[in-house]
């Protein structure tokens, strides 16, 4: 086998998969067609524009730099590949829709859910819970009578600072490691600074979140991916049964 034949065979055996599973899907996913709500099936006729508010790009960078993706995932897999959809409060919530009927807003992750981020932190190991709908869960933890935090940001600051604190989920010792580097402690002067984290005052010290902590919490509170999607990418059973 001559050198030239060997090199070209090597190049071809690499080029085909490189082109088919990297370049083509990259180009196709980049120009994704936006899906439309249809009048007959969704009751309104407009384009589905995914909306996320909050400091998504900086927060996503802080999320990546601190390795949150090592233990947390952000993907609700489709039914045939995983059963996150069944787990309560992971893919969506039980809410009363406008006509008072309690519906389950769980749905799979769609390509439109990572809008505003450069890199989807899909995650490596799922030691901690999936974070696709963490914003909704935090809201529910706040409704628990014993939680110390008064706002979603407050709960998340408490959790990041010391997840062993009995905010609401009964703690076990392999909880989320303490992210104390995201906070700074300072002596409490007078009645303390307004943006100190409530519930963390002890013996004259108060804890303030740094810029990174605020960006991260704002990013986490933007993670709510259970909004209604158009009929064409809505795979729920009762909808399909309706036909």
């Amino acid at each position, binding site marked *: 086998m001559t050198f030239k034949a060997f*090199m070209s065979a090597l*190049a071809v055996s690499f080029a085909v998969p490189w082109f088919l599973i990297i370049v083509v899907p990259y180009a196709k996913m980049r120009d994704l067609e936006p899906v439309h709500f249809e009048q007959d099936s969704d009751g309104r006729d407009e*384009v589905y524009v995914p909306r996320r508010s909050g400091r998504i790009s900086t927060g996503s960078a802080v999320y990546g730099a601190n390795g949150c993706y090592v233990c947390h995932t952000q993907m609700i897999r489709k039914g045939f590949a995983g059963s996150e959809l069944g787990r309560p409060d992971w893919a969506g919530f039980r809410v009363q829709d406008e006509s008072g009927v309690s519906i389950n807003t769980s749905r799979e992750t769609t390509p439109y859910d990572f809008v505003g981020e450069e890199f989807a932190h899909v995650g490596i190991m799922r030691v901690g819970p999936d974070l696709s709908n963490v914003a909704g869960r935090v809201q529910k933890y706040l409704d628990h009578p014993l939680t110390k935090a008064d706002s979603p940001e407050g709960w998340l600051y408490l959790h990041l600072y010391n997840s062993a604190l009995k905010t609401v989920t009964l703690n076990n010792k392999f909880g989320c490691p303490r992210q104390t580097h995201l906070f700074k402690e300072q002596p409490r002067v007078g009645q303390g600074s307004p943006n100190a984290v409530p519930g963390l005052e002890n013996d004259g010290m108060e804890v303030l979140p740094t810029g990174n902590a605020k960006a991260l919490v704002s990013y986490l509170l933007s993670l709510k991916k259970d909004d209604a999607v158009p009929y064409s990418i809505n795979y729920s059973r009762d909808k399909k049964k309706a036909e």
Partner: protein
Amino acid sequence: MDSANDNPLKRFSTFWVGLVLFAAFGLAGLVLGIGFNKPVKNGYDEVNSERRETIREEVDKTHAGARDMADKSFERVGAVYLESAPVAVEKPEFILPGSATQLGKASGGTGVKVPAGFPEVAADAPIDPAVMAKGQALYAVCSACHGPNGEGMYHINKTGPPLADSEWVVGPVANLIAIQFRGLNGTIEVNGKSYTPVAPMAPLPLDDESVAAVLTYIRNSFGNKASPVTAEQVKAMEGEKGKPMLSPADLIPPK
């Protein structure tokens, strides 16, 4: 070492062949990448920009009314004043005896008449600074149409003509007092230029001292120099109150 297969030329060429081969797929990716980095074809920005235009049009429509309302506000104010001219009294018995209307009716409309015994004031009579200060304070209301320095607002929104070196201001005092009581409407010639304000000057319900003070102020500032106006003079002219609005023709022409 320098055999057929291993000479510096071959080594040099292999170096560059190696470089090209190493970077083969990187360069291919870069070339394709340039194709990628053009803005996304019909992604969300296009959809969003359409939405932005529709929202822009709606906003313009709802605010259209408000915008032109702002431009013509003074004409409208003027029109309101014109329509709201005092309604002619149908039956004579409605007039209260001794009221300004009754006096005005009695002395007949149109022209400004200097009543008998109208007190005269010397041109160089001393001016009390307290009166001037009070006049200046009161002038704030007048500055809305005559300009803070009496230069008039006509050139901006066609309202008040200038008071600075205006022959009317330094002219007969009776004119000024009559204007204060009966207001003025129509085209007036000041200092050689003619002005047709969009809104007539409204009669101002001030007491005698205030009218005297403000008139003394305008006759002795913005470059004017004239005799002060006293409360007695204003009192003497109270017959003019209640008469219909003056037109420039009714004024006593200044010398």
